C-alpha cells in the first residue's frame, strides 16, 4: 500500500516523509497534519487517515485490470516490506538509546551522593573560617582607632605649629620685606584664629598677628606714602593693602592725597616762578630776551616805550609752560595712569569685585584731576595774562600749543574729563586776550606815532615844508621831515605794524599748531577776532580818535597843531581810497575768513574814514580860520579907530595874515591837490584889482558918502546880494587846496567884517581899512576858487567901515595903491 506517485527514494525529503509518516502512524501529529487530513479525506488515499480498505479494494477491482491488479499487489507488498524494515530499524535504534540513558542516570545517581558529602564538608569549613575571622577583627579593632586618632592629632599639631610659628614667621617676612608671603600666610591663618579667638592661647597668637600685621600694614602704608617706590611696588602695596581689608576708598584718597602733595609741590614751583617773574616785571628791568629784529622799531628814538618790544622778564612763557607740562602735566598723567592701573583696571576677584571700586575710584579721580587742573589752569592763565608784551607772539603760540598738546594726553587717559576742553577754552581766551592786547598795542602805537609826528611838527621848521629834506626819513634827527614825508612814514609805520601784528596773530592758525583746527580758530577767531576785533576795530579807532581831535580841540582853542589835523585828514582820505580795502583784502586772504557771521563791509569803513577825513579837514579850516580871525579881531578891537593917524603903511597884522595864509597854502599844497578854481578874469592880480576897485569905487562908494541918499548903499548892496549866492562861512570844504584856502579866507574876512561893524571910525580909520583891504585883495585872490568872493567880502568890509565912519572921506585909490605897493 504505498502511493504510486511518490517513489520511496532515500533522499532527505524522502526520509522526512518517512518520519512524518511514522508520526502519523503513531498519531503523534493530531494537530500538525490537520491540513493534510482535510486534503486526504478521500477514503481512497492510502496514506490518508480516512482510508477505507473496502472502498479502496472495490475501487481497485472496479477500475483495474488484472495485470494492473497484479502490479499493484506486488507494489503493495514491496511497500509493506520496506515499511516493516523501517519499523524494525527504528525500534532497534530507540531501544539502544533507552538503554544508554538508563545507564547514565544510574551513574549520575552515584556521583551526586558523593558530591553531597563534599558540600557538607565545605560548609563546615566555611563556618570555621568565619568564626576565625570574626575573632581576628575583634582583636584588631582597638589599634586601628588609635592610629586614626594619631594621624588626626598629627595634622592638627602641624597646623598649630604653623599658628604658633606664625608671628615669628610674619616677623621674619617683615624683616625680609616679603610682604606678599606674610599677607598670604596671615590670610590662611586668619579664619582659624578668628574662630578660636575665645581660647586664650589662640587669642594671644591672634593678637600677636594683629600687631604684626598692623605693623606690616603700617609699613606698607609708609611705603605707599613714601612714594619713592616704583609704580610696581606701589601697585603691589595697594594690592596687599586691599587684601588686608584696607578700605579701598581710603586707599584712593590716600593715594590721591599723596599724589596731590607731589603735584602741589609742582604747582607751588610754578607759582613761585610766577611771582618771581611778576616781581621782576614790575621791577622794570626789562631784559630783552627775544631778538627785537623781527619787530619794527619805534618811529623815532623817543623815550616812549614801544609795546612791541616785549619786556620779557624772568622766565618766558614757553619756559613756564614747558615746566608746567614737564612737571605738572606729566606727573599728573603718571598719577592718572598708575591710579587707573591700581584701582580701575585691575582684575576684580572675589569680595573686592562686589565693592564697586572702579566707579568710586573713577569719580574720585575725576574730582582730583579737575581740582588740580583748575589750579594749574589758573596759574597758566595768570601767566598768560602777564604776557602783556606783544613782541614775540610765536613764543606764546608755541607755549599755548605745547600746553594744549600736553593736555591731549589727559584726554587719552581720562576720556570723560572736562580738563582738555577747559584747556581749549583757556587757549581760546588767551587768543582773544591776545587780539585785544594787539589792538590796544596798535592803538598805543598809533598814539605814539602821532606824538612823534607832533614832535616832528613842533620842531622848528627852517623851510616850511618847502625844500624837501633829503630822504632821511623820520629816524634821522638832523633833517626835519616835511609833511608828505611824515605822512608816508606814518602811514607806512602803521601799515607795517598792522602787517606784523597780522603775521603774529596768524601764528595761531598755523597748520602745525594743535589747536588751530578747533572750530573757534577756524571760524570765529578769523572773522570775529582778527577781522572785526583787530583790523576793523583798529581802523575804526583811527577814525574815532581823529574825530576826537576835532571835538576836544574845538572848545579848548586848538590844542592840536593844525598841521596834524591836515595830516590826519589826508591819512584818513588815503585810507578811504586805498588802504582800507588793501588791509581787509590782506586779512581775508591770510585768514581765509569765511563770512559766516556778518562782518563790517569795506564800504562802511570807507565811509567812516571819509567822514573822519572830512571832519578833520573842516576842523583844520576852522582852526586856521580862527587863528587868522583872532589876529584880525584883536587888531580891530584894540585900536582907537576914531583917533587914528593918517595911514602910511599897511598894518603889520595884514602882512601877517597874508604871510600865514601863504604858509597855510604851502602846507595844504603839500598834501592836497590844487583843486579847481573859477577862471580868473585876468592873470594879473594887479590889473584885476585896479579895474575892480576903480570901477567899484565910482559906483559904490561915491554915492554912499553923500548924506542925501542913505538908501543907495543899502539898495546897491542888497541888489548885489540878491544876485550873488549866499556865502556859508563855516561850511564843509572839498578835499583840495583851493577849497581849503577859500574856507579859511572866508572865515577870516567875515570876522573882519563883523568886527568892523561893531566899531566907529574916524576919517583915517576908514582910510586905514581901505589900505588894509586893498592889500588883502592884492594877495588873497590867488588862493581862492572864486576871487569874486574875496572882492565881495572886502567890499562889504570897506562899505561897513564907511558906514561906521564919522567923517567918511575915502582915500584916493592911487594913494592906496602906492602905500600897498610900498609894502
Amino acid at each position, binding site marked *: 500500500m504505498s502511493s504510486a506517485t511518490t517513489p520511496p527514494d532515500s533522499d532527505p525529503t524522502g526520509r522526512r516523509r518517512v518520519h512524518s509518516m511514522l508520526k502519523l502512524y503513531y498519531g503523534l501529529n493530531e494537530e500538525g497534519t490537520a491540513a493534510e487530513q482535510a486534503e486526504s479525506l478521500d477514503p481512497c488515499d492510502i496514506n490518508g487517515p480516512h482510508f477505507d480498505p473496502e472502498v479502496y479494494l472495490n475501487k481497485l477491482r472496479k477500475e483495474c485490470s488484472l495485470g494492473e491488479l497484479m502490479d499493484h499487489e506486488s507494489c503493495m507488498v514491496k511497500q509493506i516490506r520496506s515499511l516493516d524494515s523501517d519499523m524494525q530499524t527504528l525500534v532497534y535504534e530507540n531501544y539502544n538509546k533507552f538503554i544508554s540513558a538508563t545507564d547514565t542516570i544510574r551513574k549520575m545517581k552515584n556521583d551526586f551522593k558523593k558530591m553531597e558529602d563534599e558540600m557538607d564538608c565545605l560548609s563546615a569549613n566555611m563556618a570555621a573560617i568565619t568564626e576565625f575571622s570574626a575573632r581576628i577583627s575583634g582583636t584588631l579593632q582597638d589599634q586601628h582607632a588609635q592610629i586614626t586618632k594619631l594621624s588626626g592629632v598629627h595634622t592638627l599639631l602641624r597646623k598649630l605649629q604653623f599658628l604658633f610659628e606664625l608671628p615669628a614667621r610674619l616677623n621674619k617676612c617683615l624683616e625680609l620685606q616679603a610682604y606678599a608671603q606674610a599677607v598670604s600666610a596671615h590670610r590662611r591663618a586668619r579664619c582659624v584664629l578668628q574662630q578660636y579667638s575665645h581660647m586664650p592661647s589662640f587669642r594671644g597668637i591672634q593678637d600677636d598677628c594683629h600687631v604684626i600685621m598692623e605693623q606690616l600694614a603700617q609699613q606698607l602704608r609708609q611705603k605707599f606714602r613714601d612714594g619713592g617706590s616704583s609704580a610696581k611696588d606701589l601697585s603691589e602695596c595697594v594690592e596687599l593693602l586691599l587684601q588686608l581689608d584696607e578700605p579701598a576708598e581710603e586707599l584712593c584718597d590716600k593715594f590721591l592725597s599723596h599724589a596731590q602733595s607731589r603735584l602741589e609741590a609742582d604747582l607751588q614751583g610754578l607759582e613761585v616762578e610766577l611771582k618771581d617773574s611778576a616781581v621782576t616785571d614790575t621791577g622794570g628791568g626789562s631784559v630783552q630776551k627775544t631778538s627785537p629784529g623781527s619787530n619794527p622799531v619805534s618811529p623815532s628814538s623817543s623815550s616812549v616805550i614801544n609795546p612791541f618790544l616785549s619786556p620779557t622778564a624772568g622766565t618766558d612763557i614757553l619756559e613756564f609752560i614747558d615746566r608746567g607740562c614737564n612737571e605738572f602735566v606729566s606727573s599728573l598723567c603718571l598719577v592718572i595712569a598708575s591710579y587707573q592701573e591700581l584701582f580701575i583696571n585691575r582684575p576684580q576677584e572675589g569680595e573686592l569685585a562686589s565693592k564697586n571700586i572702579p566707579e568710586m575710584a573713577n569719580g574720585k579721580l575725576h574730582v582730583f584731576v579737575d581740582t588740580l587742573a583748575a589750579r594749574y589752569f589758573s596759574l597758566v592763565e595768570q601767566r598768560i595774562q602777564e604776557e602783556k608784551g606783544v613782541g614775540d607772539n610765536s613764543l606764546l603760540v608755541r607755549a599755548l600749543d605745547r600746553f594744549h598738546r600736553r593736555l591731549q594726553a589727559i584726554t587719552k587717559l581720562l576720556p570723560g574729563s572736562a580738563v582738555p576742553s577747559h584747556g581749549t577754552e583757556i587757549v581760546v581766551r588767551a587768543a582773544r586776550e591776545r587780539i585785544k592786547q594787539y589792538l590796544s598795542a596798535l592803538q598805543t602805537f598809533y598814539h605814539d606815532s602821532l606824538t612823534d609826528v607832533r614832535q616832528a611838527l613842533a620842531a622848528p621848521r627852517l623851510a616850511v615844508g618847502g625844500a624837501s629834506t633829503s630822504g632821511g626819513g623820520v629816524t634821522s634827527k638832523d633833517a626835519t621831515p616835511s609833511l608828505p614825508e611824515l605822512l608816508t612814514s606814518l602811514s607806512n609805520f602803521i601799515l607795517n605794524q598792522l602787517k606784523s601784528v597780522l603775521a603774529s596773530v596768524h601764528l595761531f592758525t598755523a597748520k602745525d599748531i594743535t589747536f588751530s583746527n578747533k572750530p573757534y580758530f577756524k571760524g570765529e577767531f578769523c572773522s570775529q577776532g582778527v577781522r572785526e576785533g583787530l583790523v576793523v576795530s583798529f581802523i575804526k579807532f583811527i577814525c574815532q580818535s581823529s574825530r576826537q581831535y576835532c571835538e576836544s580841540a*574845538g*572848545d*579848548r*582853542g586848538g590844542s592840536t597843531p593844525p598841521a596834524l589835523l591836515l595830516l590826519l585828514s589826508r591819512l584818513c582820505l588815503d585810507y578811504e581810497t586805498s588802504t582800507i580795502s588793501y588791509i581787509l583784502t590782506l586779512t581775508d586772504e591770510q585768514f581765509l575768513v569765511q563770512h559766516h557771521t556778518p562782518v563790517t563791509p569795506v564800504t562802511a569803513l570807507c565811509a567812516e574814514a571819509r567822514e573822519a577825513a572830512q571832519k578833520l579837514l573842516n576842523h583844520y579850516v576852522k582852526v586856521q580860520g*580862527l587863528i587868522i580871525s583872532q589876529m584880525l579881531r584883536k587888531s580891530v578891537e584894540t585900536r582907537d579907530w*576914531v*583917533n587914528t593917524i593918517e595911514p602910511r603903511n599897511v598894518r603889520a597884522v595884514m602882512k601877517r595874515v597874508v604871510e600865514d595864509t601863504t604858509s597855510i597854502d604851502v602846507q595844504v599844497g603839500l598834501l592836497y591837490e590844487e583843486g579847481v578854481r573859477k577862471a580868473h578874469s585876468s592873470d594879473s592880480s594887479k590889473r584885476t584889482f585896479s579895474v575892480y576897485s576903480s570901477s567899484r569905487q565910482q559906483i559904490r562908494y561915491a554915492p554912499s558918502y553923500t*548924506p542925501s541918499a*542913505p*538908501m543907495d548903499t*543899502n539898495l546897491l*548892496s*542888497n541888489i548885489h*546880494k*540878491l544876485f550873488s549866492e*549866499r556865502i*556859508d*562861512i*563855516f*561850511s564843509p570844504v572839498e578835499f583840495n587846496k583851493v577849497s581849503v584856502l577859500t574856507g579859511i579866507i572866508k572865515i577870516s574876512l*567875515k570876522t573882519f567884517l*563883523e568886527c568892523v*561893524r561893531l566899531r*566907529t571910525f*574916524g576919517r583915517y580909520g576908514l582910510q586905514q581899512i581901505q589900505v588894509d583891504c586893498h592889500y588883502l585883495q592884492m594877495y588873497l585872490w590867488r588862493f581862492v576858487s572864486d576871487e569874486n568872493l574875496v572882492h565881495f567880502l572886502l567890499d562889504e568890509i570897506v562899505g561897513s567901515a564907511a*558906514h*561906521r*565912519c*564919522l567923517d567918511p572921506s575915502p582915500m584916493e585909490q592911487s594913494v592906496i595903491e602906492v602905500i600897498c605897493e610900498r609894502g
Partner: protein
Amino acid sequence: MEDDAPVIYGLEFQARALTAQTAETDAIRFLVGTQSLKFDNQIHIIDFDDENNMINKSVLLHDAGEIWHISGSPAEKAVLTTCYSKTSESRVLTCAAVWRMPPEWESGSHESPDDSSNNPQTLELLCHLDNTTHGSVACVLWEPMGDGKRVISLAENHVLLWDLQESSTKATISSSATLEGKGQLKFTAGKWSPHHNSTQLATANDTAIRGWDLRSMSQIYCIESAHGQLVRDLDFNPNKQYYLASCGDDCKVKFWDVRHINEPVKCLEEHSHWVWSVRYNHSHDQLLLTGSSDSRVILSNMVSISSEPFGHLVDDDELSDNEESQQEDKGKEPLQDSIIATYEEHEDSVYAVEWSAADPWLFASLSYDGRLVINRVPRALKYRILL
C-alpha cells in the same frame, strides 16, 4: 489855511536893536532902534495886524545917538531904555537912558508913513543911567515881571542895579558889582533871570558865563569857556529855573543846567557863522529862536530839554474831537528835537531876534541892513503843541 508868508519891513537905516514891547499884551508890537552916524536915529514902532497880515509903523526920533540896545519896560508900555553911542571929543561912549514915548504917537501911527517920517515925534527923556565913571554900557535889563522900577545896566566890567524913582525920572544906583580879573574884562551880554524871585542875573564876558546873586551882588557860578569863542547872547528858560541857553562865535547854541556847569546839557551847531541872538519862546519853552550872521534865523524844537513832558502821549479821544483829521496821524508820534524851520529872508547878518510879547506864535528878526521880518511858527507845529 497855509502858513502865512513872512511879512517884511524895511528900515532906511542899519539896525541892531530890536525888542518886543514887553508890557503890551494885546497888540503885536516890536520896537526897532536904528544905527546911523550921520542922521538922526529913530525908533520904529512896528505894529503887526495879525488878521490882515499888515504892518503899521510909527517912528519916534531918538536924537541922542545910534542905538545899540533897546529894552521895553515890563510895567509901562510907553517906557523904554536904550543904549546909544555918543561921540564927543573924538571919543565914542555908549550911554544908557530911560525914555518915555510921547502919548500922541499912537494917533500918529495911522498917518501915512511919509508924513510920520517927515515929522517924527521925539522921545521924552526920563533920566540917564549915568555911566561916566563906569564906561560904555553894553545893555540895560529890566526886572522881569517887575513893576518897572528896577533896571540893571552892564557897563564894561560893572553890574549896576538902578532904582528908578519919581516915575522913572530919577535913577540911583542901589548896588553894584565889579568883575575883576586879568586883562580888560567887558560884559557882552546879560540876562535877568525871571526865576528865584528875580534875584539872579547871568552875564557873559568873552567865553565865560557868570551867574550873580543880586541880593549880595556876588558871583554864584561861572561857566568858564562856555563857548570856544565869544559869548554873544543868553536867555533863561522861562519855565525851567535852572536852564539857560547861550550862543556865540563858535556857531553853537548851548543849553546849560546851571547846577551842573561842567558840561552843556545840549549843544546845537546849525548855523554857519556866529550866533548873535538866542530867545526862548515865553510860553512854550521848547521853541527856540536863534539869529546868526550867516543871515539865517533858525527855529528849533527842543522838546527833550523843555518843560513839556517829553514824548507825551496824545489822548486819542481829544484828537477824534478835533475837526482837522489829518492832524491825527502826525500827533501820534512824539515830537523830537529838531530844526523846525530855517528862515532865509535876510540877506545880511541877523543881530536880533525876538518873540512877540502878545502872540506866542509870532516872532521878529532884524538884520543889519534894516530888514525886519515877522514870521510865525508853522501852523502844523502850533497845533501839535497845543493839542
